[in-house]
Every structure is written in structure tokens, then in C-alpha cells.
């Protein structure tokens, strides 16, 4: 079973994402911010990291950069969730090493659709 690390400081978003992913048959580990995610990423392997951008302590792009520094996460897909689809944001994501982006709000079906493209 594929494991996904879902990172968001908002409990409601985190629950929604986790519920949707679990419903679709994925194993999900939740983290409340980049720092928490980094610690959890060190304990096991994930097939995908799905992270919010704006979070306290460590944001999504910093998390992405830190994960890419580790050989374990060099090739793992990392999707960044943002509320704006600005080019500036996309370029920042690209520079940080993110695999792709997804605009919030999204609906559960869309989330599963996108994840299906990178996890096979």
C-alpha cells in the first residue's frame, strides 16, 4: 500500500485530505507543519508528500528543500498546495524542487485524480 505524508497546519484541511486519501486506499500519516513533517519523514518511507505552503515553524517550500537534501527523498513526488496559482508561486515551488502544485480549494475527486498521476 502506498503511504502518503499529508502536511497542513489546519486540522480541518488535514482531516479532509487524510479522509479522502484513506478512502481511496492510501495509508496516510499527518503532520502539522514542515518541522513535524521533516521529523516524520525521517522515520519511514513515503510514496508521496502532499504539503500546504503557508505554515508556522516551517513552510511547504522549506520542507521541500530540506527533503530534497536527503537521498531518501530525492525522487519522491512532492506536491505543494497553495491558495493561489500565481506564476511566482509556481516558480518558487519549482526552484525548491517540488514535483507539482495544486490549487486550494480542490475537491476530493480532483485530489485523487492528481495523485493517481504520480503514484502508480
Amino acid at each position, binding site marked *: 500500500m502506498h503511504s502518503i505524508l499529508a502536511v497542513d497546519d489546519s*486540522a480541518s484541511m488535514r482531516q479532509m485530505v487524510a479522509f479522502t486519501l484513506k*478512502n481511496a*486506499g492510501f495509508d496516510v500519516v499527518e503532520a502539522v507543519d514542515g518541522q513535524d513533517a521533516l521529523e516524520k519523514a525521517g522515520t519511514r518511507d513515503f510514496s508521496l508528500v502532499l504539503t500546504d505552503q*503557508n505554515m*508556522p515553524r516551517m513552510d511547504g517550500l522549506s520542507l521541500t528543500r530540506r527533503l530534497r537534501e536527503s537521498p531518501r527523498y530525492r525522487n519522491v513526488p512532492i506536491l505543494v498546495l497553495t491558495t493561489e496559482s500565481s506564476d511566482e508561486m509556481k516558480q518558487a515551488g519549482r*526552484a*525548491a524542487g517540488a514535483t507539482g502544485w495544486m490549487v486550494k480549494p480542490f475537491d476530493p475527486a480532483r485530489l485523487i485524480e492528481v495523485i493517481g498521476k504520480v503514484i502508480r
Partner: protein
Amino acid sequence: MSRTAPGPAGAAGIDLGQFHQIFFEEAGENLERMEQLLLALDVAAADDEDLNAIFRCAHSIKGGAATFGFDDVAELTHELETLLDRLRRHELAPAPPMVDVMLASGDALAAQLARHQAGGQGARVDTAALIAELRALAGGHAPAAAAARAAPAASASVVTATSPPVTPAADAPHSVVRQLELIVGPLAQPARADAIAELFAEIEGLGTIEPIDGGQAADGMRRFKVLTTSSDAELIDLFSFHVSREEVRLLPFGPGYGFHPDAPGAPPLQPEPAGFGFFDDAPGAPPALPSPAVERTTDPAPPAGSLAAPARTERIAPAAEAATLRVSVDKVDQLINLVGELVITQAVLAQTSRGLDHALQQQLGAGLADLERNTRDLQEAVMSIRMIPMSGVFNRFPRMLRDLAGKLGKKVELVTHGEATELDKGLIEKITDPLTHLVRNACDHGIELPAERVARGKPEHGTITLVASHQGGSVVIEVRDDGRGLNRAKLLAKARERGLDAPDSLSDAEVWALIFAPGFSTAEVVTDVSGRGVGMDVVKRNIAALNGTVEIDSAEGHGMTVRVRLPLTLAIMDGMSVGVGDECYIVPLASVVESFQVGPGLIRTVGGSARVVEVRDEFMPVLALDALFGVPRTGAPAGQPIMVVVEADGGRVALLVDELIGQQQVVVKNLEANYRRVDDVSGATILGDGRVALILDIASLVRRSRH
């Protein structure tokens, strides 16, 4: 575009309603935090971290609101976020009017959320004026744009938090054609989605709508592409003719996601047009890739990680919620209840073992002692789950005082200590109103106007101090002010005017206590802030209802301190058990004044049936519990009867009982929830021997004695 999910399992329409409650709680916390941060914001030298934190609050609410379909909340937070984003990027300088408008926006958001939480009934909160102001403020560096909108920046500079001037809503959103994706469902009758589309198409000038799912919905959701200049709110109002608001969602049209070419894990790019192609879904065709979803950029992608700046060390935010768990209060209460049962069982066992012969008792003894200790620890641990810090209550006062002081033309500073002091959740809810009243009083009646303070040689700023602390088994909350204090002579005169017995010989404490008399107000000017008359007596009654006490300390010209003492929890109480016939009753220890044996001739009958007892030259009504509760008597009471003098609501009554059994902590069981309301009884408990004892409602008994 195909919309079937290629994931491991199809994501059938997931009911987002199940996440609403947690969103409301979270949004409430974010609003509270935003308000605190705004109030603490030093406009002249705003801290970057604070601005970021405020931004994050608005941002987080917006993200959730948009996801869960609360479009009005998302719309207002979007404007708020825009202004905050410019502030944190230093594109605008913070100014006091911004704080006012943002605080007012916070209030409006709270109202919007409350409305959604109540099921969306009633009129929508009108935020047109606020949105216009937020836009004007956010456009501060582009005066032309701001002037073109309805509210010029100048008008924004005079707004107050309580009454933002009404400015016409900006018309910006109506001039732009937007491409939206409309998602409807899951619907029991999919035909209703078509009814929406027909309705939309019928209205001239609204725009265009076309299905993007071929009229099919694999996951129970129907999807349409909508081109319109109308706002989300207007569209949803329209659609609500056919489907409920919760069944409709509007999202920006487009894939809403993308992959960076060559990034780790990205799906392979669609090849450049090469003179050949596949028909979608044709036998043998490779899976199609949505071309618009792929971000094509010309600059070479840097190898991942090579550009990574040395990781910034982020400031550690307080209280990450990683290690916390949200559970419903009901579950905790159930746990507390079960532990209560366990405590009783343990007491029954201990009592039973005493009746056993010595050898058996010895064998059981060690085990029973362990059980007792563990039960006690378990009870404390479980009780602590319901304990929440006082900060929840204290945090509401900065905003209240800011508004209040502004209204009264006073300058007030609030200092709080001991916000981390924990108190039972039930008590916190019930103490909030009395405390609010005390703080209002301190600001309204205590603190003098700035000029008067300066004339008295005091600093212009008055200070109100809130202190919470644990003292023994109680929590003590103090409300102190450095205002004018109480005037002994004035209080005594006022008391006599009202026909109260107030000799000059009263001690200071007794004089101060006069303000708890019903209808007693020493304010020379009645203001709309603290109201007229109703005041301290209500505060005292509410606190007494929580088994708490309140006392006052004051020095004229130097201020006043109100000290509220509360039990840690409502679930356990110190009680005095008294025997009447074969029954046992519990008297809350906090209300017991004294007890004594009744000598012959002490009880007198007045007015035919009413009985009074004389205690140190004072006559007190007597209530015989056996008569009151109809306790059966098999014979005359063994010894001399005993009087227990109790006090509540400023009145005293002497309870006539057969014997004093002892003092003990009792676990309070709600009678109403398990049986029904019983007059003069506030609850019940189970004694060590397994018998049920009723807990007396002293306030009710005192009221009874007055009639």
C-alpha cells in the same frame, strides 16, 4: 476532459459536511488569535513575525472556508488576506485605521461563521462596506485605484472598530468575466443539476453554462463550466432555488494543478506535436495526459536541491498541536462519570471489608489500599482533562476594554497574570459573564478620566489587573483596578437610604460587602456600560451558584480588588453529611456558617406556624428537613436535634437535622439528567455504603424560607 479518478479506488462524492465542525472550531481559534495579535500589534513598529502570524490566521480561515463551501467567509478573508499580504511584504505601512477595520472584519467573520454553524438560517451578514474599506486600505499605495473605488482612503482613517461607515461596495468583481467550475452534488436526483443549468441559461446576461461531464457523473457529482461576471454569492443564491447551498461548489476553472517538467516524480511530458496522435480511449492508445496541466517553462530547471539555501531556522511557534487530540466533551464526561462510579465501588469495597474478620481483612488490605490510591490518581487525571486554562476567558478582555475605554474616553491598560491557571471547562463557561461584569465595572466605575487621574497625581493610564492562581483546592481570580476605590461614608449613607441596617460600627470588609445587596449601585452616573442597578448582587449570586465566594478589598483613591474563589471543578464537592431519620443529606460545605445543638426553648413559633431560632440576638428562620422532605419517623430522634446554619444569596436559614455525620468529598451526580428536577435538591451522590444521598440546594431553601 475525463474526470474519472485513476487512483487505487474511485473517490466517490465525499460528504464535506463531516469536517465542518472542526473547521468552525479551528476558524474560531484563528479569529481569536488574530484579534489578540491585532490588539497587541505595535502599529509604529510592527514585528514581521506578528504580521506573518496574523496573515496566517486569515489565510487559514480562507483556505478552509473555500474548501468547505462558505463562500462569504472566503470572500471577506480574501480581502483581509490581501491587505495583510501587502503589510507583511512592507508594501504598505500599518496604520491604526487598518487595525480597526481588521478587528471589525474579525467580528463580521465570527458572525458569518456563527450563521453557517447554525445551519445558514437568517440573513447573510452584510460585508459590502467592510470589503470596500479593506480594498481601499490595501490599495493605499495606488491612490488612483482607491479613489476610483467608492471609499477613498481618507474616509477609512476615521472609522472606528464599532461603526464602520457605510461605503458603497466596490464594483470590481462584476467587471471581470470569470471561468468557474460548478460542482453539484452528490444529488439523490441528478436531474436537479440540469434544472440549475436551465435556470442559469434562462437568465439573460448571466453568462454561459455547459456540462463538462457529458451529463454523466461517475462519483455522483455533476460538473459544469460557467462563464460569468456574477459573484460566487450571487450564483449560489440563484442555485439554491433547486439544490441546497451545501450541494453546490464553485472553483476556478482549470486543472488547478500542474507538474514541473523533469522534477522528481513528475509524470512524463506529453511529446511535442509530432504529426501523429491517438484518439482518446481508442483501443491500444496510451493513457492521455492533460496537456494544460503541464507547466512548460523555458528556463532550465535547476537540479533539485542544488539551489537550496541553507535552511532558515524558523522561530518556534508556541504550542504546536502535534501532541494534542480533539475529543468531544461528551466523551470526557462519560469517562468522568465512569471514574465516579469506580470511586463509589471502591468506597463500597473498603466499607465492606471492614465487616470481615481480621485475617481476611489483612489479606484484602494491601490490595484495597492500592485500589484506593489508583482510583484517586485516576480520578485526578481524568478531571484534569476537563481543565482548560483561564487564558480563554482573559483573552476576551483586551478587545472589550479597548472598545469600552474608547467609549468612555478613558485610558486603560490591562495586565494579566496566571493565564495558564486551569479550571474546569464548565466553570470557565459559567465564570465568564460574572468576570466580564467585574472588568466592565472596574473600567466604568473604578478608573477615573485621564484628567482626573492626573489631577490626583496618578498616571494618566489606569491599570486593570487580572490574576488567576491556585490556592489549595480552589482557584482564585482577582480583578484589581487602580481607580477611585470605594467610599465608606457614601456606601453607608446609600445603604441606610435603602433601608439596610448599616451601623457605623461595621468593619471595612462588611461595608464593602454592602455593594452585593440587591439593587445596590454606588455609581453616581448611570452609564450604558455597566447598566443601572443590576450588578454586584447578580455577580455574587452567579458565583455562589458555582459554590464559589467573592470578597472585596478597597482603599479610597487607590482602587479596589474583587477576589473570586472557585472550586476546581463542579464534579466534586466538599460536603457535610447530615442525618435525618434513616436518610442522609449533603450540605455543600461552602454554604455552612455554623452548627450547634439546639437547647430547649431556643426555637420559637411566630405567626402561627413559622419557626425561628435565636442565634446571638439574631432571629433566623428554621427549616426542619424531616418535614420538608417527608422523612418517615419510626421513633423520636435519639439525641438533641442539631441546627446547621447555612447561607446563600445574602440570606441565612437554620436547618434542623438529627445528627452531623461528617465531612467528605462527594462526586456530584446530576439528578435532572438521570431523573427529573427536584425542588430544593441540586444533585445526588452515592455514599461509601452504597446509599444515595441528596445534595441540598441551599439557595432554594433560603428562598423558600423567605415566603
